[in-house]
């Protein structure tokens, strides 16, 4: 039986493994952390339906447990080619094909120092907000309820100054989703979204955006925040420009949420060099082509699924998992 190694145990890796197993391959999932599920484990619920993220992760984990897919946890891959995957402890796993599902890296908001993440209280990232929602405690540092909340879009996306030119795709709709969640928790609070463009590309997204404005009275200001600074009374003063009216504005808020983008993994370049793969200028892995072979790598026997090739939504990642099994079958016969 042909053996396929799936690198990464997030939702892309799990779905790929399941689809491959169903097609009769012997599958091993190699995951560097101590559990399956990837970044989605930290997520509270998913746009636009507000489906709890655990519904996806738990279901996939259960299916993996039932499927007979071999799972190797705490196993970090240092290099691979189509016939071998080498782990950090030196172990070499023989295989016939590799599916790279190593996903993405979250942009480190501390790099945009002017927004004060890690410096001032009550500056959070969208990831922090999901964690707080999961814990069921969303509050200010002093335990108080925020009266005014600002979301800032495109932190580490579409920003040449931090070498991230690409759009991270999912942050716009995440910002709308989290703004609604905030408004549900704190109906008395004013919630602002500072954006460059609002990109509502998926089914139900535009409707959710409209609802945010009409039903929840969330304010959308077109313009990026230039800097945040603490005020004497412990709030945050934001400087921005409303580019629709062409005027600079200053606003004091209790909480600033940075919608951090998805950037490529630092490993990508090293993997590419070792295995003869191609990276896109953004640093994400470049598939063989954008249409007919978008889960193939250009190197026979190495395939991609999920956000390792570009920022993707949960639904798109899961589709990749099914598509890659089809491509591997075509390759191994």
């Amino acid at each position, binding site marked *: 039986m042909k053996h396929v190694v799936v690198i990464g145990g997030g939702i892309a890796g799990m779905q790929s493994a399941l689809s491959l197993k169903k097609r009769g391959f012997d599958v091993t999932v190699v995951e560097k952390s101590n559990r399956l599920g990837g970044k989605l484990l930290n997520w509270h619920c998913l746009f636009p339906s507000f489906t709890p993220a655990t519904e996806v992760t738990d279901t996939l984990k259960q299916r993996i447990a039932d499927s007979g897919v071999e799972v190797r946890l705490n196993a970090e891959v240092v290099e691979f080619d189509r016939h071998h995957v080498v782990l950090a402890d030196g172990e070499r796993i023989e295989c016939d094909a590799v599916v790279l599902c190593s996903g993405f890296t979250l942009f480190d908001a501390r*790099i945009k*120092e*002017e927004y*004060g993440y890690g*410096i*001032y209280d009550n500056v959070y990232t969208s990831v922090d907000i999901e964690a707080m929602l999961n814990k069921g405690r969303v509050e200010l540092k002093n335990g108080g309820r925020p009266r005014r909340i600002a979301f800032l879009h495109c932190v580490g996306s579409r920003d*040449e*100054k*931090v*070498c991230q030119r690409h759009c991270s795709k999912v942050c716009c709709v995440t910002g709308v989703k989290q703004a609604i969640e905030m408004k549900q928790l704190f109906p008395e609070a004013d919630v602002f979204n500072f954006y460059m463009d609002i990109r509502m590309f998926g089914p139900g997204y535009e409707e959710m955006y409209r609802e945010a404005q009409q039903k929840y009275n969330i304010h959308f200001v077109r313009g990026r925040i*230039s*800097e945040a*600074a603490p005020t004497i009374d412990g709030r945050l003063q934001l*400087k921005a420009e409303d580019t629709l009216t062409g005027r600079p504005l200053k606003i004091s808020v209790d909480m600033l949420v940075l919608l951090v983008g998805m950037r490529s993994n630092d490993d990508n370049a090293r993997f590419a060099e070792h295995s003869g793969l191609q990276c896109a200028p953004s640093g994400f892995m470049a598939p063989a082509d954008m249409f007919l072979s978008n889960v193939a790598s250009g190197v026979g026997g190495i395939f991609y699924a999920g956000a390792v090739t570009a920022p993707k939504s949960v639904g798109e990642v899961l589709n990749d998992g099914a598509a890659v099994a089809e491509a591997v079958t075509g390759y191994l016969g």
Partner: protein
Amino acid sequence: MNFFAPFCIPFMVGAAVMAVALVLKYVLWIWHLPRADRKLLVSGIFTVQSIKAVGEVISESLLHRRIFKVNPLLGYMHASLAFGWFLLITVGWIETIAYLGFRYVPLQGHVFFKYFATCIAEHKPVFDFLMDLLLLIVLSGVALAWGKRLYSKAMGMRRTTKHVLGDRVALSALWFIFPARLVAESLTCAIYGGGGFLTGSISSFLAEHVSGSLLAALYEPSWWFYSSMLGIFFVALPFSRYMHIFTEIPLIFLRRYQLRPREKESSYDNFEIQACSRCGICLDPCQLQSELGINDVQSVYFLRDRRYNRLKLAVANNCLMCGRCEAKCPVGINLNSLRQNSRDTMRNIPDESRYGYLASLDRSQGEGRVGYFAGCMTLLTPRTLSAMERIFAAAGEDVWWADRNGGVCCGRPLKLSGETDSAKKMMRYNKELFYKHNITTLVTSCPICLRVFRDEYALRGIEVLHHSEYILRLMRQGRLKVDAAGGRFTYHDPCELGRGCGIYDQPRAVIEAVGELLEPKHTREDSLCCGASLANTVINDAQQLRIARSMSAEFEQTGASTVVTSCPLCKKTVARGSSLPVKDLSEVVAEHLA
């Protein structure tokens, strides 16, 4: 003895044209000097500065001491041409006197003495030897100049200047002058006898192997050729790069009298611009050249374009003003100041209506004799700001915060872009603000602000300190204690702080109080620019990043675990290019407060 022959005409015409052009130029330039500059000139002439200038002329215009420092071979090439030719003229002059005694000899009589002296039977072998030796030295310089065209790396130069047509004509003439002289003198000796070890040996070879009629036929043309080459070179000199040969001399004097390029273009600039020899030493240090392949904006090309009135704003603006070339310029031209006043000429369009908000604006906070000016870039890197807050608190300093709550720009970015008058509005505002709050010390963590506070604000009664100087002072006074926790640091010298303000040692002393300091390959006066300089408004972000990446690589090679710098703009830029954490000096100190 008759000191005229028709072949002298090209030389005589050339020398006359050159003399008239030079005198006209220098008289006009001095005539048009700003009144203040003329005052400096008059009050400086009869001081010791003039004597020092004579010394500098000998060491720089003749011996080219500073080029020797760049590369010994390159120095020898310049010195052999300049000093060798100078001695050839001087010794030739003495030779004439030795043969003829003190009597009037026209210029061409000195220059073509070998031609006219054939009738003198008596020979003085000392002069034959000396003149041949000097000719050989100059010829070796010419040979090196040819060699440099073929393989400039041998002289430590990876790139040489691309010359314009006029320069090429003058250069070719210059290259032919001395070989032509050698041929003409050797032919003369072959026919009439005499000559030293060089011309003498060549002449005996010629006499033996070439027929007498051929020698006679070549004799006059060879002198015509020599004279023509001299003539062409002299006519081209005032209009080509060779203008530098003479212009460096008045420049050295004027500089000794404290004349400098001003905020606005002035007549003095001509002396600096035309003292550029287009040697091209400024090309290699330029990171726009080495990293981005931009090869038409460097100082040599900027000065050339400005001299011939074809300077474009895109060239004037395409410079980091990092000062790396200025530090290496063998003529010591104030390259950044000249570029800045060019930008002023091309770009200074004050917008009166934009600065109405400055009136009655005061967002400063706190009270104290020490003022802290964060500057825009520190406000965008608030870790530095909060570190400074902790340092001030630890030292028990009462601080007046000039702009923590938002302030007015120091003015340097506008100045760098040429908008001098708008910058002045901001400078006046800040100056009045500092005086109003009665501070005695002004601390800033931004070298860009520091530079303009020191150079342009003329803050009487207020000591301006960079935070690295201030922190070191606190530590030496015992007001600030840090624990020597160790750690391996490397330090990036910001251009504005290092080459701009000469501050190299203080930040290093502060780092060494905390841990180990590892120097990158390019350091101190030779440090690299991060690439994000405010002075360059032409290159794009991706190009800035390429510079940042390449210069950051040096930090990783040191084996340090943290890159330290003391400029908020450098910090942001290096952080983009480096995989190591990048911190401001104040952050390192604040993290290690005892």
